[in-house]
């Protein structure tokens, strides 16, 4: 069953943007955007470390607010305190951009089938077809 999600339009997408929060409120908003984002983000931490991956969860109401991230190139999950984050870059492809039912209907036929063909080739390459 198809389960649509809220999809940003291409113009709404955060792909490529960088946030350097200056206040606690800005930080919380930036983390919320990272959680909603359907792609990987790069976090710069106060320790100097940089970690890229998918933000799968966040708890801004915890005594020590934190987020959970699946790193891109390692197994496991990182738990990172909001307080340690100095910047959030939306580095990964926004996999949801332009993918809503409405956006799909508006696309030209040729574009739709080109995208479908690419998805089919990807699945075939993985042996899933």
């Amino acid at each position: 069953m198809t389960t649509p999600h809220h999809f940003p339009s291409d113009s709404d997408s955060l792909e490529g943007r960088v946030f350097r929060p200056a206040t606690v409120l800005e930080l919380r908003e930036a983390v919320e955007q990272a959680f909603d984002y359907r792609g990987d983000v790069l976090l710069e931490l106060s320790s100097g470390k940089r970690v890229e991956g998918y933000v799968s969860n966040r708890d801004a109401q915890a005594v020590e607010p934190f987020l959970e991230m699946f790193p891109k190139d390692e197994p496991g999950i990182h738990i990172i305190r909001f307080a340690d984050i100095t910047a959030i870059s939306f580095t990964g492809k926004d996999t949801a951009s332009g993918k809503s039912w409405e956006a799909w209907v508006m696309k030209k036929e040729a574009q739709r089938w080109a995208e479908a063909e690419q998805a089919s080739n990807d699945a075939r390459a993985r042996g899933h077809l």
Partner: protein
Amino acid sequence: MAVPVSQMYTVASYVLAQKMRRVKRYPLVLMLEPLFRCNLACAGCGKIQYPDHILDKRLTPEQCWTAADECGAPMVSIPGGEPLIHPEMAEIVRGLVQRRKYIYLCTNAILLERKLDEYTPSKYLTFSIHMDGLQEEHDHAVCRDGVYDVAVKAIQAALKRGFRVTTNTTLFDDADPRRVRAFFDSMMQLGVEGMMISPGYSYQKAPDQKNFLKRGRTQQLFARILEDRKRSWRFNQSPLFLDFLMGKREYQCTPWGNPTYNIFGWQKPCYLLQEGYVKTFQELLESTNWDGYGTGRNEKCADCMVHCGYEPSAVSDTFGSWSGFGRTVRLTLTPNGR
């Protein structure tokens, strides 16, 4: 009857036990998502929109069984992604069958014929085949030619081997009621046990709040599809839910009725919205602000009429009073009678 008597008895006795114990919030169907990887890219599907390293993650059989034990729901729906891609799916199913869970394995059927030997027919296992309409509509919805024919062939193969088979169909406002009714005829002629239908869900950041116009259009569509129902059509859903889709009955959403568990954890608040994750089912029940969701309570819920939130409401209505039970029996026996 679409649903076997043993399943009806199991669900009925479970729901009645919850009501007798005055349990306010209980799960009916566990939505178990063991992976998000799919071999299709259906129009509008939000479940597969993740980076590759996330799409490559899988729940283990042990994680799946633990979730089922923790939740306690009598039924388990396994959507995805495409569940048959999971290399241990047959083992997951075996473990759930041992736990006497009624399983709906939701699949696009592309891999079904190839994988059938890994499964054993059981009253506990149903292959729920994603079919969004007749050939033209379905292939269009899944963005690939030929999928309808593959699915039909797989349905026939599974039925021949003695498996329970149903279909699940998502309909958007542009669906042609006459074509949908013809689709129902086709599926019944194929011999499927029952059909499940649901409107598609879409959430706009600035939804049309004027009289829930989109919801109204959804009700009009389903009214046209389901009025003057044929006796040969068997729906794997509560007749009260079908009435709700047609706009003849109002329900508030029951988001805890179909809790969702996937690689991120237990999903708050429901199958469609992803507003956070917790580690345990109990934490899901206790920490979610349930009153903040539902019709008229949240802009994201304004147009939603999807089965995962409202079918549990209908089931609760059936077993909540003698009149609810009576309505259900009457609509089951005479779906067109008023």
